[in-house]
């Protein structure tokens, strides 16, 4: 039932990077293969060399160019000239082109390829042409590599930035998530202290409840989604403690639709809302109060409604969703990017807090 909310950007950019690498390897191989095929046919057709000789020539030459391209690629990984220093790249490419032509000549002449006079004169006269071709190819590969590394840098920068933002968001979420109210803790401990003298068994039980509640508060991940059922059972621990504290003054009524119990919500979201309602109800009236909690599953959303009584005569005019609810509001915004999920209204002497949790199916 646990699921975690993660930002979509990170996973997406990782996916993009993977696809690109595979695509590039494939493109380079097809490119070299196509060049070899076209040039072989051209040599065979134009100069009438044997297929094997033509193939040997083109494979050799293109592999040399590919090697030079690869060397360029590797060097650019460690040194990326700025646009101003692009001239270094051109000089570097000229050098590699000359080397490729010389190496090609050397290999063809010394290799066992059964050279003809015709081929030798072709080899000599095409040197300039080959040099220019090699230079163009290597430069092209250089430019592609440069762009590739540049894009990677940009992407890494973006990732760093999004990581930083995510960290900040996580930190904010951690602060916003229900923090233990020291007031609640100390008053609970005081109740335990009172019970220890007169009803030790009950004191022990309350220590148990408080421990279970605290454990539930500590272990939860800020962005984790839990089922309504789980959230309600955690809430029950809290309510049991509050009922020991306030005795007969506080009673609660929880109505959850059967169909709503597997619905997911951010962990520890409901408890601060209920805590707020209890405080509001208990401190704004002097009688016995009932806190009503309802969970309804609606159109792709879970609706949680918490009601507490209040006294419209004496309670301070509160602006918007004010008091304890602002951190719930902010948390919902960080998790769902929406500000309209939490709302409050009054109905005669009842104060109603309503939260909508989108359910992605």
């Amino acid at each position, binding site marked *: 039932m646990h699921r975690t909310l993660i930002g979509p950007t990170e996973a997406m950019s990782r996916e993009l990077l993977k696809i690109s690498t595979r695509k590039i390897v494939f493109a380079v191989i097809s490119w070299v293969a196509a060049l070899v095929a076209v040039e072989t046919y051209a040599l065979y057709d134009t100069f009438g060399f044997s297929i094997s000789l033509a193939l040997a020539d083109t494979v050799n030459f293109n592999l040399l160019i590919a090697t030079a391209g690869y060397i360029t690629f590797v060097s650019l990984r460690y040194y990326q000239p700025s646009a101003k220093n692009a001239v270094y790249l051109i000089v570097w490419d000229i050098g590699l082109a000359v080397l490729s032509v010389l190496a090609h000549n050397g290999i063809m002449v010394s290799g066992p390829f059964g050279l003809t006079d015709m081929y030798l004169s072709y080899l000599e006269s095409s040197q300039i042409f080959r040099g220019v071709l090699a230079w163009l190819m290597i430069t092209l590969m250089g430019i592609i590599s440069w762009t590739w590394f540049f894009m990677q840098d940009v992407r890494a920068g973006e990732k760093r930035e999004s990581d930083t933002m995510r960290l900040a968001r996580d930190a904010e979420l951690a602060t916003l998530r229900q923090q233990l109210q020291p007031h609640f803790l100390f008053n609970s401990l005081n109740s335990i202290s009172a019970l220890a003298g007169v009803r030790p068994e009950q004191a022990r039980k309350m220590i148990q409840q408080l421990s279970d509640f605290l454990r539930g508060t500590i272990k939860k991940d800020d962005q984790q989604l839990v089922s309504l059922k789980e959230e309600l059972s955690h809430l029950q621990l809290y309510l049991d403690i509050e009922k020991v504290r306030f005795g007969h003054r506080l009673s609660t009524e929880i109505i959850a639709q059967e169909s709503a119990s597997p619905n997911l919500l951010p962990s520890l979201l409901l408890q601060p809302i209920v805590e707020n309602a209890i405080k509001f109800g208990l*401190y704004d009236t*002097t009688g016995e109060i009932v806190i009503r909690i309802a969970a309804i599953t609606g159109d792709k959303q879970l609706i949680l409604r918490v009601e507490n009584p209040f006294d419209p005569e004496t309670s*301070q005019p509160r602006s918007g969703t004010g008091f304890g609810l602002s951190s719930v509001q902010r948390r919902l915004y960080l998790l769902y990017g929406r500000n309209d999920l939490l709302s409050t209204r009054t109905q005669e002497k009842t104060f109603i807090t309503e939260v909508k949790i989108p359910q992605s199916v």
Partner: protein
Amino acid sequence: MIKTILIDDEPLARSIVVEYLQHYPEISIVQECNDGFEGVKAITQHKPELIFLDIQMPKINGFEMLELLEQPPSVIFTTAFDEYAIKAFESHAIDYLLKPFSRERFDKALQKWLQQHKHAEAPRALLTEDVRQPEERNRIVIREGSNIRIVPVHEIHYIEAYDDYVKIFTQKEMFMKKKTMSFYEKSLDESQFVRVHRSYMLNLQQLTKIEPLEKDTYLALLKSGAKVPLSKSGYAKLKGVLGL
């Protein structure tokens, strides 16, 4: 026999004081109260020498309850709010017990009170003045016979001095409270309430017009039609606050 009253909205929190007090046969608990309303009634009726008082309680808090008493008894605060400790001592509390507290700590507080109690009856009167609110004051509690009224400060139009009392005017009503003008000058938000005269303070939200009365004196007209005299220095202060 020393009479005491416990005021706390949590029954278990009272029961621990009951338990600790069993070791003091000379002290008898005459009543336990769930909130400040009950507290005011019980104190008026029984006139205890000492009370144990929680701060955060339904409707009115512990400080507000003390304000309603003409002659407050000695107070030992019992609360989980430690940020109020300084305020509590400012209000001349005997001691301040942070929940949960031990018997030793409780005994120490009580011994301290018993010492003072034996030597003099004096310190209790100190409480009437200068009881300050834990947070910025946004309401005033007023006792009318057996009724307690809570008046939000934004509903106050102006305040007028009247012997030992002040008269607090709202749209329809007037309340009397045994306090001084300087008390309200100190405790109300000074950007909202201005002391414009030795005997008058007004709510800026209510001000509509200032007109001359005689040489050097002016009259402020409020939305309700009420007229409040301004002294020479009061007029200058009002101009300053309004940025004229």
